[in-house]
């Protein structure tokens, strides 16, 4: 809402209408990217989803920290939403239109890996230049508080006895929640293809379905159900991460602590287009590391219930490749691929 800036732009606009023709032409012919000297212009973070979701929040909080700390000096960061097909539209734009350009970054995560595999997309997250994984969010399995299921074991036993009696409610097909269900069932030695998974759009719809008793068990990010858990309307069976989570002074069980060798982290990462020059890639890694180390970012993580999941460069690349293979295998076993 800065007035001076607006006026400035207005003035600049009229001038540039005439003056910038020359350099603009040059730039178009150049393919629009100036490689080798990040940051040589403003940086754009693409959110491959609509405003309001986890990726969007990550990008906007990231932007906030960069602006606040002036981590790019005079250069600004803008956030652009490119919606479509669980991120498939966004990533295909990044991969085909922004090659080599270190000034266009994209937020991605496990959800995109799941969606791309399910859509049998030719482009995968591994086609990008991973800069760093940033955060991870815990998944949580809950039941309605008056459910007869008291522990994760009860749930698994019920499933083993008759899979058709258990309906699992969560987000999109092949997404993190579905993957969590599959991972658990597989770790328990049962048949994942019998999982009766019912997808809901967004946590709100799933919450309603759990509270109304439509589904036996609900799976989503911890933050989605936190309020209901605190209010005593839902009971936690397990969380999905390695480290146990403490909620309202009580330590929640994990799938591992309940005796199932299963772990799912809803990780989010920041990636650059393919073929970014090595020097720029390093500068980007340094830049993202600076954000990650800032106290502001730590505060944001804490506020949103995200755990630090920082891996950079080759580590991130390797991790993303492993996740892709794992998700692909699991989706096959769930019978949705």
């Amino acid at each position, binding site marked *: 809402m800065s007035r001076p800036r607006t006026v400035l732009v207005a003035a600049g606009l009229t001038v540039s209408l005439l003056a910038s023709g020359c350099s603009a032409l040059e730039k178009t012919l150049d393919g629009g990217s100036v490689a080798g000297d990040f940051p040589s212009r403003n940086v754009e973070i693409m959110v491959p989803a609509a405003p309001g979701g986890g990726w969007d929040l990550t990008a906007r909080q990231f932007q906030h920290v960069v602006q606040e700390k002036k981590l790019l000096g005079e250069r600004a960061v803008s956030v652009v939403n490119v*919606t479509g*097909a*669980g991120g498939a*539209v966004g990533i295909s734009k990044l991969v085909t239109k922004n090659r080599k350009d270190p000034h266009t970054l994209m937020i991605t995560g496990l959800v995109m890996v799941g969606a791309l595999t399910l859509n049998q997309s030719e482009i995968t997250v591994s086609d990008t230049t991973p800069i760093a994984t940033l955060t991870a969010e815990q998944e949580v399995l809950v039941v309605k508080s008056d459910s007869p299921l008291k522990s994760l074991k009860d749930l698994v036993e019920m499933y083993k006895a008759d899979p058709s009696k258990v309906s699992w409610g969560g987000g*999109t097909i092949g997404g993190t929640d579905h993957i969590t269900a599959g991972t658990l069932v597989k770790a328990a030695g049962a048949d994942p293809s019998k999982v009766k998974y019912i997808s809901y759009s967004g946590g*709100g719809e799933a*919450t*309603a379905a759990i509270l109304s008793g439509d589904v036996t068990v609900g799976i989503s990010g911890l933050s989605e159900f936190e309020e209901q858990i605190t209010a005593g309307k839902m009971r936690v069976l397990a969380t999905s991460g390695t480290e146990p989570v403490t909620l309202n002074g009580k330590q929640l069980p994990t799938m591992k602590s309940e005796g199932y060798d299963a772990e799912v982290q809803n990780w989010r990462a920041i990636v650059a287009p393919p073929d970014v020059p090595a020097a720029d890639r390093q500068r980007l890694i340094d830049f993202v590391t600076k954000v990650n180390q800032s106290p502001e970012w730590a505060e944001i993580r804490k506020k*949103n219930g995200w755990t630090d999941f920082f891996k950079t460069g080759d580590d991130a690349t390797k991790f993303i490749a492993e996740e892709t293979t794992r998700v692909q295998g699991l989706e096959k076993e769930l019978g949705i691929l």
Partner: protein
Amino acid sequence: MIGLSVFGDLLHGFGTVLDPMNLLWAILGVTLGMLVGILPGIGPALTIALLLPITFNFSDPIGAFIMFAGIYYGAMYGGSTTSILINTPGESASVATAIEGHKMAQKGRARAALATAAIGSFVAGTISTVLLTFVAKPIGSLASHFQATDYFAITLLAMVAVTAIVGHSLVRGLLSLVVGLFIGLIGLDSLSGAPRYTFGTLRLLDGIDVVIVIVGLFAIGETLHVASKLRSTPERPAVLEKGRRLRTGYLTKSDWGRSWKPWLRGTALGFPFGAIPSGGAEVPTFLSYSIERRQARKKGRDEFGDGAIEGVAGPEAANNASFSGVLVPLLTLGLPTSATAAVMLAAFQIFNVQPGPQLFEDQSTLVWTLIASLYIGNLILLIMNLPLIQIWVQVLKVPRPLLYAGILVFACLGVYSLSGSGYEVLMALVIGVVGFFMRKLDFPIAPVILGVILGPTMEEQFRRSLVISNGDASVFVTRPLSAVIIVLTVLALFVPYLPRIVARIRGTQPTRDRLTFGEDD
């Protein structure tokens, strides 16, 4: 003594809102909401999403939420304004308003249409906020009892009950509806992940956004239609009835008489529909339209299709009342039941406020301030808008080429900002061409929107019910709530034919021989 504590809390809330700074946010919100909401394709949800970043700099969430309430009411009213004046509703909730509202404007009654919309919005907004104030908690818990079968039954009932929008011809009306249902099928099937009618393109995997359908059918379709008539209909000066005094709100005595009942009925529909998950604003607006039409016919005064003020008053009230309804499950359960509510939820979370059962205890000041700001937002909207009507109607005086060129520019902008690519503009154009031919061939437009909105919900809930029951179709009748709604649906379907059936049984000649959907033909 619960009532007293509510009053105390609410008074406290008013105390906070009436702080000059907060009042300023409310006014700013209404203004911004109206300016952005007027653009075709940018409805309340998108407006809030767009304006959300502005509030990032607020240190105090209260100011931000006061502004949101203002933005919402402003955006909603902005949408109605364009529906009425130039037949380009910006979002699905004002489609019903466009049907009669634009006819009124064509007859020179734009001021009255805008006034009944503004006053109706105010009445409905105020009543429903009162309801929100006192019954939020009991109604809220009700919402969590609805199961998939009940949702299915409700969408079925809605689909049958709103047949009045089908228009003059049953065949053409149903064709429109079916095309809408088909558009709703396009994209990844949410329950199985299978792509349907995506023709191998990535772009169609998410389906076609209802906003694109609305902008295409209305804004672009209308422009093409007008373009084709340019040569045969010379530009005529804008027709406007003599302006009435502001004191009567531009409405004649008979307008008031014809509006107040639809306002109340609209409120009665909007609030509960907003409160149930997967309700939202569309169904009650269409329902309200249908009911007003039926009421008008009962009284033998059927101006519908020709600019009936009831057809504006009812849906506008329903539209506004549904927002307070939507807030019920959002605030008490943390359940967003509409796109706008989902954006509001995101906004809450940015300020680290988690709506849900604990909210009224944990964030009492914030909640009551928000509720108080709804009252104020409503009032500001009314105060600002009655005088502004004089300015809005000037839109009708803009020379036709400039007006429609402008509509094209804003339609493209709205569609473009959805995804940031020219692709959506092309899609809207294709749908616009369809809308053009629908106008030429006299197909009603509203059923398409209804199909796009209700179809996917109906299918989803139907299939979820069946998956949960392991394929046992009896679930739809064994659950009491669903069974009752389905019986109502069957009644709604057959009641219009009862006189005819009775006549047949008696062996007398039925009054009409052709089946129409309770329609004059």
